């Protein structure tokens, strides 16, 4: 009797679940003329109210309003950035990549291009008459992706440098340092005054390598990193060793704060915006935090380029420049409808990025915007005589990058010698087939 009751309820439950599970689900808003509408599946790392996704979404809405006969139905799928490679791998294995997706991993882009999976964006630009990307930026992107044509759409133009708290500098009688000696002097004075000189997100590893890279560029010249990534220069070159020694010194003297390797990006930014740390190496993306309520410093913030190094071959006012995560288009999905839409996006990305996030992008703006104080700082910085540089990992296979990231922490903690660090990176390169 009990058995019957139990099985009876089990069967009923099973039926109910099966019905619900296999049941049809309301299809996402299909427009009236389903034939004319093009659905674009967009795989991105940010939700629709953030970052690039917000820009693309709003631009799509505007495009649909001005092109009611050929609307684009944008289906957004969000995957955590750290899992993006996994998702893309799984999809690629089934030949099922999305129509539009976001990625920053160099070696995958190369593989996709080799297999003819990606649409050549230069063709789109030519077809659609897009003029918003400058030759300079285009060339930089070609160098960064190591391809002979543009197969990616950039989303940002970030320049990186050192942000500083003007009030703290003023209170302590400090000037903006132009050379490394001046910089170390500033750090020493701040440290003596009981103020944390620099906030560094050591837990995330890449902020450390950015600092190392910036120093190495100043010491060894603007093409040092390019050569090293091409295998022409060893990662144990003197310029690199100098850089590694410097980061170790920064760590040892405590100029990067206590427990630096426990600090993540959020905490790093908060340390700076709350006034607890005097400086912070960051890129243009920092303007979003600075413009938010979290910033208690208001406009008491300044920006300067990484200092020059004694006897260094680098140029003053060199800013590491990057183009954000890239958007890639699947070749098989591309058609005229998509082309028109992408053309619209590329023509208006500059405006929208500035409007929503105060972003400077490689897409020219066609309207005048009030950039906001912080973006203006960056804009002014790039207008002065200087140079753009790459970052150490820009062309590194991820397996090498991980070794470089991990070692950076150890060197900064004094747990690994500069020579060993350089060797580990060289070895990792050698292991890449």
């Amino acid at each position: 009797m009990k058995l019957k009751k139990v099985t009876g309820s089990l069967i009923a439950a099973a039926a109910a679940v099966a019905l619900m599970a296999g049941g049809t689900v309301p299809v996402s808003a299909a427009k009236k003329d389903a034939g004319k509408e093009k659905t674009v599946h967009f795989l991105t790392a940010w939700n629709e109210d953030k970052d690039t996704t917000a820009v693309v979404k709003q631009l799509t809405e505007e495009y649909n309003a001005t092109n009611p006969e050929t609307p684009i139905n944008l289906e957004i799928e969000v995957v955590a950035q750290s899992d993006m490679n996994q998702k893309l791998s799984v999809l690629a294995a089934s030949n099922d990549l999305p129509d539009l997706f976001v990625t920053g991993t160099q070696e995958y882009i190369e593989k996709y291009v080799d297999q003819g999976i990606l649409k050549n964006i230069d063709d789109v630009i030519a077809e659609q008459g897009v003029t918003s990307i400058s030759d300079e930026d285009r060339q930089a992107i070609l160098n960064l992706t190591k391809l002979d044509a543009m197969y990616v759409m950039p989303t940002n133009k970030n320049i990186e440098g050192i942000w500083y708290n003007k009030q703290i500098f003023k209170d302590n009688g400090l000037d903006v340092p132009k050379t490394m000696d001046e910089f170390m002097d500033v750090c020493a004075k701040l440290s003596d005054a009981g103020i944390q000189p620099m906030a560094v997100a050591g837990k995330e590893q890449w902020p450390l390598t950015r600092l190392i890279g910036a120093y190495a560029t100043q010491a060894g010249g603007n093409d040092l990193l390019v050569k090293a990534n091409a295998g022409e220069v060893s990662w144990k070159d003197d310029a690199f060793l100098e850089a590694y020694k410097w980061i170790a010194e920064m760590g040892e003297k405590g100029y990067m704060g206590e427990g630096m390797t426990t600090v993540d990006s959020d905490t790093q930014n908060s340390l700076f915006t709350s006034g607890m740390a005097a400086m912070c190496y960051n890129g243009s993306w920092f303007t979003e935090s600075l413009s938010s309520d979290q910033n208690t410093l208001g406009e008491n913030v300044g920006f300067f380029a990484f200092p020059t190094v004694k006897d260094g071959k680098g140029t003053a006012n060199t800013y590491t420049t990057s183009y954000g995560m890239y958007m890639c288009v699947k070749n098989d999905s591309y058609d005229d409808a998509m082309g028109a839409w992408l053309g619209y996006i590329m023509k208006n990305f500059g405006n929208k990025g500035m409007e929503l996030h105060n972003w400077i992008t490689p897409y020219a703006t066609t309207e005048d915007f009030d950039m906001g104080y912080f973006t203006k700082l960056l804009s002014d910085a790039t207008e002065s005589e200087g140079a753009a540089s790459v970052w150490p990992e820009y062309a590194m296979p991820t397996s090498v990058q991980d070794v470089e990231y991990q070692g950076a922490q150890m060197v900064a903690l004094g747990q690994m010698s500069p020579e060993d660090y350089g060797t580990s990176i060289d070895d990792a390169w050698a292991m890449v087939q």
Partner: protein
Amino acid sequence: MNKVLGNKKAIALFILPAVILFTCLVFIPLIWSFVYTFFSGQPGLDFKFAGMKNYARIFADKTLWVTVKNNLLYVVVVGGAQIILGFLIAMLINFGVKKHQNLVRTLLFVPVVLPGVAVAQMFIKIYAITPQYGLLNSFFSAVGLDSLVKGWIGDPKTAMLALIIMDIWKAVGMYILVFYSGIIELPEDSVEAARIDGATTWQIITKIQIPQLKPVFRMAIVICITACFKVYDSPVALTGGGPGTTTMMPSMYMYNTAFNYAQFGYGSVLAVIILIECAIFTFVVGRIFKTKDGE
């Protein structure tokens, strides 16, 4: 009785649904990944047959052995602690709490229920040194042990310990539950008979209850240790494998290799290594328990 228990039709009915489901969704993908170990590159992109190349690479791969070493330490300490503490606390609840046993058990189980990411964030705050001292550092500072104040998850010497404590805390509730379920199902009569014979509580525990719990122990040990060999979420969320590679685990290295380095074949080899470790261990445990039983 053997006829009833040997009823072939019933056996088939009992085992087939599970076995079919398992074979299709677990075993076949497993074999498939094993085939992948003989290829290099990424499936769908540039997959090429590579013979034994991936296997040869194991020996030159220093990072792999670092992760294996980290993992073994983790397995022994965390695994051991979870089992021993799980058992002891379950016994404690059984003997020490007369009313509200259910409530106590539920509350102790709560950490198990929390998402790993939340637990990791909480422990990051507990271990924090900047911008404020977290719980742990505040405590040390308050009692005058300033030398112990440090960035726990950022220091190569203590990051592993920080991870270990977090994971013991998180999962011990589950083993309390498992042992408790085992303990309450123990027959009362042997205990009563022993008491009548004048045995002390200690003797009852060691000579009667623990032996009776052997199947539970064996099962808990296998589950716990295989989970420890495979651990992924906690180290990724707490330290990201850092600083350096001091808390990196084989499954994290495997994930990075398979997906971030676009070397799915080699990643599959790493999975095979983890599988072999678990298999060896399970075999050894099975042997230990068998000989003791004399089965």
